[in-house]
């Protein structure tokens, strides 16, 4: 029996040896977040795409209450076995991060801890209970930080009945005038490939964004030399555009640039491949047109910059990896969801103000509703 038990335990340990990791870094600790991601990647730990996908959660930064609550929700949505690491102090240096990840893996593999966590029933029921509230307040109860996103309904005034305490999705006219379910979805503040701290509430008919409101901007985003910010924006767009291989090869360019390391031969090859790619150009064409430039133009320009530009952090200091918040609704409304995500990522590079206040919007400062004129529909 001991043999069976120990074998099962070893198998379990092996199975959990490469956990999927999600790093939630507050806007002012972005680079520490990158270091954690790089440390995880060098161990072969894949990045998680959603809370359901994640095994290890790394929270970086002393979060303000609302961001802390968002991290809590991520944690809440993760299933056992799971393990959480909080980096609040100065655990920046490599060895500190490695120790924390080691410890996370030990906790992840500890059978008793995980079993206790898994049998802690009623969490879902609790969440459900919170939502079993009069219509309209469901969103408020929910805190607005639901990354996993099952936030249906709650649309103005249409009472369609309810199921299990959740209001039903109401219907509204889509761009062709058909009555379609209206879904409400909040993006952020934490999501892979999303500017940390930004919260955008979108209304969807089908998979088309019909309105978008920036509810919260990052307060004091970290600023970087331009090549670093450019490299990060490029990797993010490639990742969201589904070019996994390119994103993977180029993923450590931002950090390397921060440490003034020139791109390697493989990275340069991929940069010129991305710049030349007709398929990518076609996929990004007409996405987020700002100043007569679309996402495809910006990506090509970034590749060019990284290929020809300065060797390291010699560029102008003071770029954030966040978009100007007032642009977001303009480029998102009327587009399909995928394109909306890419649109935001392709603008996530803006000059920050001296002192690091960045381009952050004041909460609830922007309320824009667009219902027609879907320019990017074809």
């Amino acid at each position, binding site marked *: 029996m001991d043999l069976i038990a120990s074998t099962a335990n070893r198998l379990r340990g092996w199975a959990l040896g490469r956990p999927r990791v999600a790093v939630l870094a507050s806007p002012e600790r972005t680079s520490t977040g990158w270091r954690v991601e790089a440390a995880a990647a060098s161990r072969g730990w894949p990045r998680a795409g959603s809370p*359901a996908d994640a095994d290890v959660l790394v929270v970086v930064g002393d979060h303000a209450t609302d961001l802390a609550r968002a991290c809590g929700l991520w944690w809440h949505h993760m299933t056992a076995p799971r393990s959480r690491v909080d980096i609040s102090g100065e655990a920046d240096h490599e060895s500190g991060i490695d120790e924390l990840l080691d410890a996370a893996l030990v906790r992840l593999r500890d059978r008793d801890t995980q079993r206790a966590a898994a049998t802690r029933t009623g969490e879902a029921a609790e969440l459900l209970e919170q939502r079993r509230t009069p219509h309209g307040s469901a969103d408020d109860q929910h805190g607005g930080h639901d990354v*996993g996103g*099952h936030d249906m309904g709650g649309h103005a005034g249409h009472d369609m009945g309810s199921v299990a305490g959740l209001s039903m999705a109401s219907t509204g006219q889509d761009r062709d005038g058909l009555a379609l379910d209206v879904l409400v*979805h909040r993006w952020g503040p934490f999501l892979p490939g999303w500017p940390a701290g930004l919260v955008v509430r979108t209304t969807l008919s089908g998979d088309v964004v019909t309105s978008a409101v920036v509810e919260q901007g990052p307060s004091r985003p970290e600023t970087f030399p331009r090549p670093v910010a450019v490299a990060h924006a490029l990797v993010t767009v490639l990742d969201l555009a*589904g070019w996994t291989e390119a994103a993977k090869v180029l993923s450590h360019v931002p950090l390397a640039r921060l440490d003034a390391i020139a791109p390697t031969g493989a990275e340069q090859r991929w940069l010129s491949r991305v710049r030349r*790619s007709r398929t990518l150009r076609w*996929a990004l064409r007409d996405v987020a047109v700002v100043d007569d430039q679309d996402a495809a133009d910006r990506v090509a320009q970034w590749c060019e910059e990284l290929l020809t530009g300065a060797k390291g952090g010699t560029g102008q200091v003071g770029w954030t990896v966040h978009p100007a918040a007032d642009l977001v609704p303009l480029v998102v409304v009327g587009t399909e969801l*995928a394109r909306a995500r890419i649109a935001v990522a392709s603008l996530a590079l803006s000059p920050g103000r001296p002192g690091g206040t960045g381009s952050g919007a004041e909460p609830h400062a922007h309320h824009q509703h667009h219902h027609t004129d879907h320019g990017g529909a074809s």
Partner: protein
Amino acid sequence: MTAATVLWVVVLALLLPILQTRSLREPLRSGARLLAEQPRRLPAPDVLLGRLAVVLVPSAALLALAVVPVGFAGAAWLSTSADLVWFNAAEVLLWVAWWCAGWSPNSVLPLVGAYRFLAQGLSYELPLMFSLITVGVAAGSLRVSDVLLAQQGVWFVVVMPVAAAVFMCAAAAFASWGPFAGPMGRDLGGGVLAETTGPARLALSAGRALFLGVAAAMTATLFLGGPAGPVASGWWWLLLKTVLVTAVMVALARRLPVLPPDRTVDVAWVVVLPLTIVQALVVSVLVLRGVL
């Protein structure tokens, strides 16, 4: 089901993940990890349809495999009078399966992933049917065994390259993989799979990997002569060709971003569909003139 079929199921399910991760161990480890993971349920899910999807994806892959000649003697597990239609029907089950998988968690992102799959289906389904029809026309039969006989002279990939290419692309599309991974895209946090964990996710992912392997074996069968080889024909040739087809798919996928489903639909209807029709026409003329 024979021992041969069971072996093939294992090989075909692991082939693509192994080539993609370039590791023998990691695909097994990810599978084991999912087995150790807690299942997950959001408030008010559609349990019935969710379970249906979990059963349907691997079953559809097995049903498709039934008409691929993977026996040691070179025979399929099942031979009907309309094998090509059978394969098509098994693939169409994925429409239902992915939709149910996206619908059931009661969550926005999987639902949008499901919408995207339907949009993608509009792109690939008709070209796929025309490429299968072209194979049937050239062989004068819908039986896989007749298709193999008809390729004794020249492989179909030579006479119908468009149909072969379309079939491979359609395989990636119905499995929502590679450049056609939009319905399970990273921009949706995994889309159809965004909320699914544990054994259910394992069943969906493994079923999808198996279907891709089966489609690669079917590509080798319909267009590359199947188990026939220059010397010592046999199942090893089919295996070799299947590995090659899969390797080509993986290599192509590395070089491409995801094709946005709503833009792909334009290309599919304006360019690809007419091309497949012309391809069918050309092959029909060749058959009428007795060239094939």
